[in-house]
């Protein structure tokens, strides 16, 4: 019996007498005394600083693939990412945006960004402080607005693409973490924040991004024993970080 048999295939109607589960827009937690929101969209919001942080957008992933002779994926990921980012900015009215690295799949992807997308980004940047932090895919300074930085310290927190061992109060991305939990409908997996007392690792915000399971040695080894995972999607769901080594269907 596959999942198909057990899952309601259309969104449950907004029935009068059986409400859907409450959707939780974010999970609130503290790091180094600062209150942060792990949003269900995969963005991190820092209310005290009016700061929104997103990681691993991977703009131009589909273009890069086709450039290398692969099949042309649906070319809508830039549009999709910007739609979601716009929604998060409308929601939070953040004054500062940090794109925490791997914003572009590579330098050519950056040049290949359609004009409409450039204008859209410019509109999002208007009236905001905007930081492009450097990732391993990133080309270096780009001719879009905003500041280009290797990493950024905003005490007590520091923002960098790849987590460093021994760091404290660190916000990073890079690993595209995802986490899976067992439900009555089988194992369900989602991109997830990984959070412990020293650090937060953000899920990838990009549309065409795979994930690394939280049980992988590199993540299990980095996060403290009492780490939690906040699953993204319809609701920001907090669970103890799954460590058991089960394969997560991507």
């Amino acid at each position, binding site marked *: 019996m*596959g999942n198909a048999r057990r899952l309601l295939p259309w969104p449950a109607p907004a029935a009068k007498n059986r409400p859907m589960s409450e959707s939780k827009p974010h999970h609130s937690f503290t790091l180094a005394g600062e209150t942060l929101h792990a949003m269900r969209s995969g963005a991190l919001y820092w209310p005290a600083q009016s700061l929104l942080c997103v990681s691993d957008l991977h703009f131009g992933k589909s273009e890069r693939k086709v450039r290398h002779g692969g099949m042309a994926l649906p070319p809508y990921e830039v549009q999709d990412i910007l739609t979601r980012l716009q929604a998060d900015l409308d929601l939070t009215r953040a004054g500062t945006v940090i794109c925490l690295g791997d914003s572009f799949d590579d330098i050519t992807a950056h040049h290949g960004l359609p004009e409409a997308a450039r204008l859209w980004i410019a509109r999002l940047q208007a009236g905001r402080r905007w930081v492009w932090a450097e990732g391993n895919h990133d080309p270096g300074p780009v001719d879009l607005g905003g500041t280009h930085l290797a990493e950024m310290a905003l005490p007590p927190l520091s923002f960098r693409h790849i987590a460093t061992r021994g760091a404290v109060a660190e916000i990073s991305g890079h690993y595209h973490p995802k986490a899976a939990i067992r439900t009555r409908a089988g194992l369900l997996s989602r991109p997830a924040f990984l959070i412990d007392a020293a650090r937060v690792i953000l899920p990838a915000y990009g549309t065409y991004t795979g994930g690394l399971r939280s049980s992988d040695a590199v993540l299990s080894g980095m996060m403290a024993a009492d780490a939690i995972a906040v699953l993204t999607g319809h609701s920001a769901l907090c669970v103890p970080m799954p460590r058991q080594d089960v394969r997560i269907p991507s």
Partner: protein
Amino acid sequence: MPLFAHLRQHQRGSPLAATPRLPYLYRMSATTLPPVITDWFQSKGWAPHPHQLDMLARSDDPALLLIAPTGGGKTLAGFMPTLADLATAPYKGLHTLYVSPLKALAADIRRNLETPVAEMGLPVRIEDRTGDTSSHTKRRQRADPPHILLTTPESLALLVSYEDAPRMFAGLKRVVVDEIHALAESKRGDQLMLALARLQTLCPDLRRVGLSATVDDPAAIARLLARHPDPCPILTADPGPDPDIAMLTTSEPPPWSGGGAAYAIPAVLEQVKAHKTTLIFHNTRAQAEIFFHNLWLANEDALPIGIHHGSLDRDQRARVEAAMVRGELRAIVCTGSLDLGIDWGDVDLVIQIGAPKNVKRLVQRIGRANHRYNAPSKALLVPANRFEVIECLAALEAVIAHDLDGEPRGDGPLDVLCQHILIAACAGPFSADALFAEMTTAGAYATLDRKDFDACLDFIATGGYALRAYDRWQRLMQRPDGLWQLRDPRATRQIRMNIGTIQDTDTVKVRYRRNRGGKPLGEIEEAFAATLTPGDTFLIGGQIVRYEGLREMTVEVSPDPGRKPRIATFMGTKFATSTQLSDRILRLLQQDDWPGLPAHITDWLALQARVSRLPEPGRLLIETFPHDGREHACVYGFAGRNAQQTLGLLLTKRMEEMGLDPLGFVATDYATLIWGLKPLTDARALLDPAALENGLEEWFKGNAVMKRTFRASATIAGLIDRMSAGQRKSGRQATFSSDILYDTLVKYDPDHLLLRITRTEAMRGLVDFGRVREMLTRVGDRIDLVPLKRLTPFAAPLFLEAGRVPVEGMARERLMAEAAADLMREAGLG
């Protein structure tokens, strides 16, 4: 062995001179069989069958289809013209291509051809080429092909993709497609015929021969085989005597529901003891595993019994096959993996566990027994539950009446066509007009619309998106001379790696832990593996094993005979009862009495007729009754499992709209049982076809069946690469899920070609909406809504069925929230 088994029988049994066919043989052989072959036949004291000589006599026909039962020597018939030709004059290069659905069959046929060819002293080189052939041999075969090459559709498609295909196939005279009935049922057949269309362009005089088991519609297979619009005569061999087939009687009646047939184990064991070798067929791998497990527990005499199915490790399967050929096994519990071709030994009984669902497949399975041409095959049907007793009787009657079933395949699927365009592009620059003309010579694509072809070409070239984003990076470019070619020639490697239409589900290997020897056991579905936690037990290859952990994408287990296992799920197809068989069952129910049925069944039917009514052909019976504090509606559509399942989804959606508050449903091949808070009173409003179709539209957007279908079609069409072993192993930021692509297309490009293909495929596959629609059209307004005070004899077994689909509370999010809360509470964090 299969080639000459029937001939040996002459040797063993009837003396040659006694066969009335002999004069015919000599008449034919005098004119067409070269002396070296007739001499060889005579030296063996053997005689060819008339249909084998007919094939020889008609060897110049452009296409020819031979329908012959298992054991009818049809493979030799297919090769007769080739051997005659090669015996007459020396030949250079590839003469005959043989294609079969199984790698093992190709290897088997090679071994069986080599012996007589050697004995005749013919200078003929015979080689097979499959995924198992070494790359060295493969290279050599392209440079210096053998006279006879035995291969599979996938290996052939790969060969056709090489630039040097015209050289390799130059002068090819004949192609033999074995077990074409099996290929015709899937996209592998479509792919093969597109490859043959290509070969026919290279070798215009190519003659095609198809070899098929007995089928319902030989003309459909002939259409598939022949170059359109060439004629394709059909030769039919003597079908041999009718099978000796019956239902297995047991002292204990079958249970009301379920599919395991555990009740029949003692009776089955008795049969095994009374026969030399018994094949015990099951419809699913999971059922085979459970049955084998139970059979072993009851096997007090320790009879040698094996298990064989497609998810077992190759070595393990090979061991079972070898033991069988040596005659060491008394019984083999198996699935469709033993349906085809290869003759494993002296099987004298076939047992089918569970209703056969499909008469044609039943007949082919029965043919596995008594693999000798003139002896009747012996078979027993074992119904797994009481309703299946009726289905088994209907199937028995159909077998005796030679009434085979089949669903028309429909037009050639476009995802296969997309892959063929990629294959053509690998072979070199091509003209779109010429490729289109070539493709429409394949029967399945004879009515292909140029618009559809162009859409496929555009998809391959540019992605075919409404947002034309890839102008600079087109995959195919049109040159100034109008020919299309790959922009980046390096793409050929990736394309060739992804050739094929077989949909591998994501499986993971299972092996013993290293400290237990690391022996490989087989494969389980990844989705099932993901639900395992250390300590869980499951059945594989008839053994109970304990899950220990996952290492490099391999499930490591240790033996654990003591515990009650969970049942591993296997993707393997769940067959729905065929339309023809369902009709037969409905007609059978209309009889006044049922002499063929045991009393416990006739009593049940009589009671149903008294308290409610029996379902009738051309009408739709819906019973409603309260039970256990809920209102129930039971819809006897007899449309097959998939369609009844789809009907359940659509009806509960309609009931939700009508305010009937449905809570859940369960579907079988015959009926859908729905429960909810309010009684159904207006069946016509519920079954309004337009409203149901609307529901389907919405359903298409987010459902798992669609996503699964999309993944299959997108992989075949080349949008998604099959994951290579290296990629999977790393597990690092693995390729993102195809669901994301599906969601993105639905959101931003709802008219995209691949979504169109997905819908078409889903409609005829798992969703089977065609049968829902057909059933609704057939019954029209002849709907019998029967309100009752209590549940009915027919509805009762449905309450015991597994696979209930709750309508409430099944939203993923709610489940996740629930599970997350539990986890936090457990961890003391909630």
